[in-house]
């Protein structure tokens, strides 16, 4: 079976989209970057996040639509990203893949 391969950062961004699209802020560049920074304690640049989002969009894992503009954005609209069915599928597969590994470990070295 051909699998869509994701890089580690791509996977994190995809997860962030899945998480944030449920919330009121929605999943867009800044919210994703904030979420990632908060959870991973590493600096994430919005520019970099955008590149990953476009790439995910080209792979068909996320969809997007233009949202509202605010004054803080200089009157510019934001692009809100949502997980597509394929995206959900890929995330699920990822999880299963990792779980499979954990379960295969005879003695988990931390509990």
């Amino acid at each position: 079976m051909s699998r869509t391969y994701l890089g580690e950062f791509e996977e994190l961004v995809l997860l962030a989209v899945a998480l944030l699209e449920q919330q009121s802020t929605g999943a867009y560049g800044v919210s994703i970057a904030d979420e990632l920074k908060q959870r991973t304690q590493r600096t994430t640049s919005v520019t970099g996040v955008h590149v990953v989002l476009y790439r995910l969009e080209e792979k068909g894992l996320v969809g997007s639509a233009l949202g509202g503009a605010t004054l803080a954005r200089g009157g510019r609209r934001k692009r809100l990203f949502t997980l597509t069915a394929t995206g959900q599928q890929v995330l699920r597969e990822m999880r299963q893949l990792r779980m499979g590994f954990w379960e295969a470990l005879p003695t988990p070295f931390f509990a």
Partner: protein
Amino acid sequence: MDKPSPNPLRTPPWADRLLGWLTPAELLEELQGDLQEQFAQRLDQVGLRRARWWYGLEALKVIRPYYLRRRLARLTHWPRDFFLKRHATPHSFFTPEHPSPPLINPDMIRNYLKIAWRNLIRHKSFSAINILGLVLGIASSLLILLWVQDERTIDHFHANGSHLYQLYENQQTTGNDLNTTPTTPHLLAPALVAELPEVERSVHMTPGTMLLLAVGTNSYRQRGCYASPDLFRIFSFPMVQGNPQTALVGPSSLVISEAVARKLFGRTDVVGRSVRVGNQDDRQVTGVFQDIPANSSLKFDFVLPSEPYIKQKSGTPRWSMNGWRTFALLRPNTDVAALNVKMLDFIHRHDADLTKVTTVMFRFEDTYLHSKFTNGQPDGGRIEYVRLFTIVAVFLLLIACINFMNLATARSAKRAKEVGIRKVIGAERTYLIGQFTGEAVLLTFLSSLIALTLVQCLIPLFNQLTEKQMAIPYANPFFWAGLLGLALITGLLAGIYPAFFLSSLQPVKVLKANSSTALLRFKTGAVLLRQGLVVFQFTLSLLLIIGTLVISRQMHFIRTKNLGIDRGNVIYMRVDGELTKHFEPFRQALLQASGIQSVSSAAEDPLYTGNSTTGVSWRTKLQTDNTLFFVLPVSYDFVKTMNIRLLAGREFSKAFPADSTNYIINEEAARRMGIKHPIGQEFSLEDVHGTIVGVVKNFHLNSVRVAIEPLVMPLATTNTMLIMRTQAGQTERALASLEQLTKQFNPAYPFTYTFADESFERLYKSETLVGKLTRYFALIAIVIACLGLFGLAMFMAEQRTKEIGVRKVMGASIGSIVALLSGDFMKLVGVAIVLASPLAWWAMHTWLQTFAYHVELAWWMFALAGGLVVGIALLTVSFQSIKAALVNPVKSLRSE
């Protein structure tokens, strides 16, 4: 939020500009919005400074391949959906919103070149003709341009070049004519520095003199000069040993070149060593300078201080005594025009007698190319040849380009189908133009590479011919840029017509079955243009051929012109060392020797008299008369030795002791003086009074470019050049006697001599070179033009195979078919002759006017050139025609 301002967010403007510039348009809004939102957040958390800093940093991160690639794709109008599926439009690839790829993009260029290469390989004979023509054209123009470049850089290496000036004297001769000479009095240089604040330094020097330099028994005749101390401070002739400021100050100093140092001492650190100069005085080497570069017009191997020389040579220094070159280094920002006005009466102020002599300065860098003067204004010189050859180079390239255009348009019928199919499939006109230009450019690049190799092989020969030391400047980026540009321009020039023509074809017409009628219709335009180009090509070739003919006729005329002097069987030898003191016994001994007819001497080469003066007077001379007299001091038997006709009076003779102050003049002098019977008339030269004892028939004192001027010949006090006439056919024996006697009388000096003929040839060096070069390049031009003709004939014959077959079947003779095929071309050549003749007449007439004595243009020159071209063209075309005519019609008609 802050209060409203033009940029309420106060993000760094440069970062916004960068974003706008680098971010793909369709992504800009969301990305910049996100960044500004983040900026607003950070503004609250960390303050303005750091927020701005972060913003800038983020903006910089747009410089990453992902955005750049997309941005580039936008710039080149690549379909966006090539990258981003979001905007994909499924129905059409190219829409107004998503235009087609442009002409210049890497993939298409690769494609153009690939197709070009395939076409090149498929049509080998056409490619060969094209490439050969282009190689010849590019190689010869490259050689010419190297020469031109070399000529243009002569004397341009001096660090002070921009304010280094040479002084010229304008002498008003008869009427208001000005005679401009670079010879100036030696008094001028020191006076300039003393009296003009604009002049920083000034130097005078003599033209080259040959002197013997000896260290022990190691002796060589070398070319050197006398110069004032600032020579090495004005010119950039770097000294490797010694102090350039003081080297020429002492009376017994001597500065030599590295080459001379090596010759004499075997090494170059020779300051303080002693050298015997002219076999009489010992000089201390005070400096060694780097050998003068090839691109210098001033050439010398050693320099002696001028001051002792001036003291020894003449009594009272006078402003009327010329013979020195003067150079001045002006202070930066000097207004030269104003200075020249100030200089007008400079000499007159010092010597009230010299009313008609003015001084003027010209920038030294320009004097090499602009050394001809008319009425005191620079008027050509070598620059004319430089321009001429630049034009020739362009001509050659043009002829080669035209070949390419012609062959490409001729073959257009064949490629028309290809064009039609491409267009139907969806190729746009720009693609086709790109493709055809690509082909041309590929071809010119290939040709340039081959041409470069050819030039590399030919350059030693070319150097020999032009007496230069040129090399392909591989290390110079400008050369490569130039070559690349040349190839590109040639390619574009050669490819542009076929490109536009072929791409304009309409697919429907071209692809219609049995399309010959349609093809014929669009072909008439092409045929007309092709014919025009052939005419143009042959017009250029004809111009070059007629030029060659006229130039070589003129050179022949100069060589054989009766100069009034018989230079055949005449040998010159420098008189120096012991010979100066014992000249008379030496002369007597020579006269006794076998094979020698007559011996005399003169101050310089009588065919190249340089000294002139206005310091002459005679009884009836008017106050306003300022006739310039050339002066040639000669010794006994001069008229006899040079075979000059004596019109009246006699030669100098030992029987008349008074001859030391007597004069011989030429016919022209007598005419200008207005004296019918000059013999016995009083005459004085530089205040030395005497009488005229002889009048000789006019002979050329100088290049035949200038008219014969008045000449006065005093009796020489010293003998500088031995002139010896040998008996006809006895040259070998005479030379042997001369050598033996020279060795005997003057053992310290090496024996050297020149034939008057050789010395004469040197006078016309540049003309001879131009003659040779035009001959070669005319040949190349005609070869290139004929190559094109050959290709066209080949194509025509191929195209008309069927017609020829039918004609033969109907009973046409081979002769009539050859005539049919050649006739078309001959008409074109005929038109070219009609066009070229008046043009060539005008050009050559203008050139010949630069000679005071020249051949007349004759109709046969044009007829000969025309005949030559017709003959060659006929030969070229008939080869193909005959081939086509001989083909068995069964073969040519069977195909299909």
